[in-house]
């Protein structure tokens, strides 16, 4: 396959991602900060460890084992804070996420150059949270698009260093999936540099478990 034919899907993903809305946990830290994110749901498990040279960029390792698409992806991910709005009691962000690496389909098929592009947006106060995220992947020729949105509320407002709790509802749209639309009530615990999320996807009866640490 020529470079151009390989690059075309990525270019399409980028174009699409730039036009689509979306969001997740903040993928960029403070200058010099490291972050490790470990995410699990019924479709996939992933590990993302990144370093932020500035408050607008981060780059790191990303690996995903995806059972929905029978493939394992390993590569590099770059995250860019496109725009941040800082309010007196709120913050909103938009991010671009790009990944390139190789995907190994389950079975005997050989690894192929693969990648993804995503666009995320979030808005947060100390009481309310909303986010939207879209991610387009091309894993070994298997192209897929996912959308994910969240709303959340903090039942109490804690001070810096307290245990913070968020009640959230996540809605995912994966048109190619067996369940195109899924809903996941989840609880987020946040204390100091660590964040843990536990949820349960109603349609597929599968658990969601995410963990993030910053240092």
């Amino acid at each position, binding site marked *: 396959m020529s470079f151009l034919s390989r690059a075309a899907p990525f270019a399409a993903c980028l174009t699409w991602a730039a036009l689509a809305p979306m969001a997740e946990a903040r993928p960029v830290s403070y200058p010099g900060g490291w972050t490790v994110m470990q995410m699990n749901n019924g479709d996939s498990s992933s590990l993302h460890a990144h370093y932020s040279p500035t*408050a607008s960029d981060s780059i790191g390792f990303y690996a995903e084992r995806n059972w929905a698409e029978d493939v394992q992806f390993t590569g590099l991910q770059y995250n860019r804070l496109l725009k941040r709005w800082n309010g007196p009691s709120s913050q909103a962000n938009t991010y671009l996420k790009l990944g390139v690496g190789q995907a190994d389909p389950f079975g005997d098929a050989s690894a192929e150059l693969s990648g993804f592009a995503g666009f995320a947006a979030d808005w947060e106060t100390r009481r309310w949270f909303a986010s939207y995220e879209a991610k387009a992947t091309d894993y070994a020729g298997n192209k897929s698009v996912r959308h994910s949105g969240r709303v959340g509320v903090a039942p*109490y407002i804690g001070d810096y260093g307290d245990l913070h709790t968020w009640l959230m509802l996540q809605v995912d749209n994966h048109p190619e999936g067996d369940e195109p639309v899924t809903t996941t009530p989840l609880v987020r615990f946040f204390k100091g540099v660590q964040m843990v999320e536990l949820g349960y996807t109603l349609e597929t009866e599968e658990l969601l478990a995410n963990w993030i640490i910053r240092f």
Partner: protein
Amino acid sequence: MKLIKTAFASVALSLLAAPAMAEHHMDHSKMDHSAHDDMVAEPNTDADPATSAQTVTAKVNGLVCDFCAQAVRKVFKKQDAVESVNVDLDSGEIVLGLKAGATLDDETIGKLIRKSGYSLVSIDRGEGA
């Protein structure tokens, strides 16, 4: 299915317990911290700014979570002039305690806050004890 039910029950219990834990924690914050701080490593355990040579209070937009506070603290703690950094998410203020004889001008403070990813609103300076 049993595993799922168990996990669900755990989440529900955590959910019920968390506000009570936080309330307990916050009630503690209103009490005398002198003994408590020695036992528990809280994020805001820097030296009391009131005992620093000079305190600088910066009002900042965008401080909504602990990750934000941590970012500001990490960036300012790298400054030689800074002895302590305390973040108040309620007021959106960063209180810097400067070392004796040290200075940190407004322009540098503004630059560091922008570098952290936030927006400076105002700076107030006060002499410490």
